[in-house]
């Protein structure tokens, strides 16, 4: 018993530096952020900042755009990467270079990515040059209703490869005996995918979903690099709102918005956790 306690103590001492780091750089600042969100200057105002946020048209716009992006981009990316992974899995042998090339968009620096997309989609870019030569009007891809579509496209292009790799790894772990049994029982391809493949890669799906949630908030980097602090209204995200309030030194407002954003993410992940746990338990 004493030996066990001692070994726990030693283990704790070893993880203590990391724990301290997490506490100092993540937990404590988060608590401070929650406290600051209830102050304006040095005056305690309770939830007044949150109430004011939900009355602010700009915040509601940012919330709406973030919600639209999350609801469209993530399922779309998961679907496309899953289908691609299934397709690639149907080949018996794929060269390692081909597999690695899927990761190239993830490692491309943002500045290079922005340059390329501007050359292609700008008002005076390649696509508009082609459209003009065919007699059509130029399309403003980055400053119209198309802006959200373009950002979703950039997001999918950038992270699809990585998700394909993850799904491919997940598919590789499914025992082939299950497929053989299903085929012997006369199951169609669609039934095999629905009844065997999808349930068996649930842990991988959850991990991919988690990664995509994280990446969906990193897309702010591309938006900021393309459009600066104040992009088109259609692609004004919560991160833009928080970032601009930081530059304007409005810390109470940005703290409130950050807390709301974190609650939003926690709820989404919690729902997914519970769903995944319930599924595992029932199995």
């Amino acid at each position: 018993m004493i030996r066990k306690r001692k070994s726990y103590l030693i283990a704790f001492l070893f993880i203590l530096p990391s724990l301290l780091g997490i506490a100092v750089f993540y937990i404590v600042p988060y608590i401070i952020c929650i406290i600051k969100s209830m102050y304006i200057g040095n005056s305690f105002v309770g939830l007044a900042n949150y109430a004011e946020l939900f009355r602010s048209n700009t915040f509601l716009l940012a919330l709406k755009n973030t919600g639209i992006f999350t609801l469209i981009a993530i399922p779309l990316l998961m679907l496309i990467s899953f289908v691609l992974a299934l397709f690639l899995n149907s080949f018996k042998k794929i060269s390692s270079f081909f597999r690695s090339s899927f990761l190239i968009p993830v490692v491309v620096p943002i500045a290079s990515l922005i340059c390329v997309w501007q050359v292609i989609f700008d008002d005076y870019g390649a696509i508009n040059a082609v459209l003009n030569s065919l007699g059509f009007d130029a399309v403003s891809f980055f400053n119209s209703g198309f802006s959200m579509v373009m950002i979703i496209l950039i997001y999918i292009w950038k992270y699809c490869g990585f998700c394909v790799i993850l799904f491919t790894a997940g598919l590789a772990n499914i025992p082939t005996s299950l497929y053989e049994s299903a085929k012997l029982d006369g199951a169609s391809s669609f039934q095999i995918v629905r009844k065997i493949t999808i349930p068996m890669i649930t842990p991988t799906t959850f991990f991919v979903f988690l990664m995509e949630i994280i990446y969906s908030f990193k897309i702010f980097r591309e938006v900021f690099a393309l459009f600066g602090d104040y992009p088109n209204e259609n692609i004004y995200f919560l991160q833009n709102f928080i970032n601009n309030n930081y530059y304007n030194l409005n810390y109470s407002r940005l703290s409130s918005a950050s807390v709301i954003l974190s609650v939003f993410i926690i709820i989404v992940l919690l729902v997914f956790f519970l769903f995944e746990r319930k599924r595992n338990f029932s199995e």
Partner: protein
Amino acid sequence: MIKKILCIFISAFLLLSGFWGCVNSDSNEKIDNITYYTVQNYSSLGGGWIYEYNKQCENEEDKIEIVEFENNEALKNKLTTELMTGDGPDLIDEKTIQNADLSIEKLIEMGAFMDLNELIGSDTDEDKIDFSDYNQKALESGFINGKRFCIPLYYTPNLLLTTQQKYSKYINRNTPALSYNDMLNLCDEISNNQEIWLFSFWDTYYLQGLLLDYIDDNLDLLNKTSNFDTSEFDEMISRFDKLIMQEGKDKKGSEESEQYINLTEEVDPSSYIFEYGISFSPYDMYSSIVFSEQRGETPLLLGCVTNDTSILSANISKSIFVNSNSKKNEKLLKAIKYALSEECQNNQVGAEIEKYNPMFAAYTGSLFPVNLNSFNKLMNNADSFKYNSKDSYYVGDDDGIPDNDKEQAEVSEESQKMVHNALSNISKYELDTYWYYNTSVIGDLIESYMNSEIRVDKFVSGLKSKTKLYLEE
């Protein structure tokens, strides 16, 4: 056993080194002096009133601690962090705010500045500040939402100098100030004329400045309203667009042009309509006026372009803000009283100089003081001087005074009256709260538009979108 000791030792070492890294190596002695943040060598730029204040302070404790930073980024990092934590410099001015790339109206919104009425109201000294000794209208510009957030010190009148003859030929209007339509008509007319320029020194960014002025005139940052959705706004932008397109093809400002003007060449006065840079001081104004009179023309002062052409306006160019976290009331009051004093403002605007030096304004950035005694002294001094009869920045001695006295002349009484009337009729004084909006919010958009990288419809939609987001954030 050895393993256990090693584990404990390593853990303790990691813990200690973690805490060691958090120790602040800079010793923070408690500073009782009021502080002011700036970039570069403050004293080498003529110092300004703070430098003069420190020179005349007898007690070290009363002096203002000037904290200098290597660059704007360092200033911004320090200032923003300290304001967040309830600290920061006691005195702030618009230069500090601009260097730190911050927005005045956002700082006011978040309560960064003290209500100076409370500070001044707490003064129990006999030499309390009496606001009747100062330009009331200028001081009113520091009032926002019923609170006095800043004290203006100096201002720049928005005036243009031309002659009656040029006015009748090119403008012909009977309001104190020009409208944007007037200026655009003028730009249109002279853009096809190879013989005439708008200003004595061609400012290639004039159209950009005019566009920004028009946008700012249709925007109220403090009340968060704009007129961007009106048809008049769209029409005016179309007019700007036409001129900007023409500007791109025009020769003006081109180094290859025969008419390219630089400072070292003498300028033919018939080749431009307005004198450039006359609002820096009354000395510069009179110098240009004498020049017109010597040519047999009648000088005429007009208000700069504005939406409301019935009034003359001025911009507050230097002012004082006080950090709302500051507790050094007594010392702050001393400093503010000095900044507003006749002695200080006389020095800053050159109200007591013995001879006119054309480079004086460039050296000190001298402007018009809010202290009424200082203003009267400045004008009396300026009225009494003789001025060069040529634009002689590089004529005669290094101080710009020609060797031959016959080349100097006094300003006529009519012209003196005209200048005095114009200055006393200024009814609108404004703080420059648009700097941040013009540079950080729409700066890139304006630049892209002026460089023809985006079309006018994209420019307008971008402008409306960015402004709406900025106002409602």
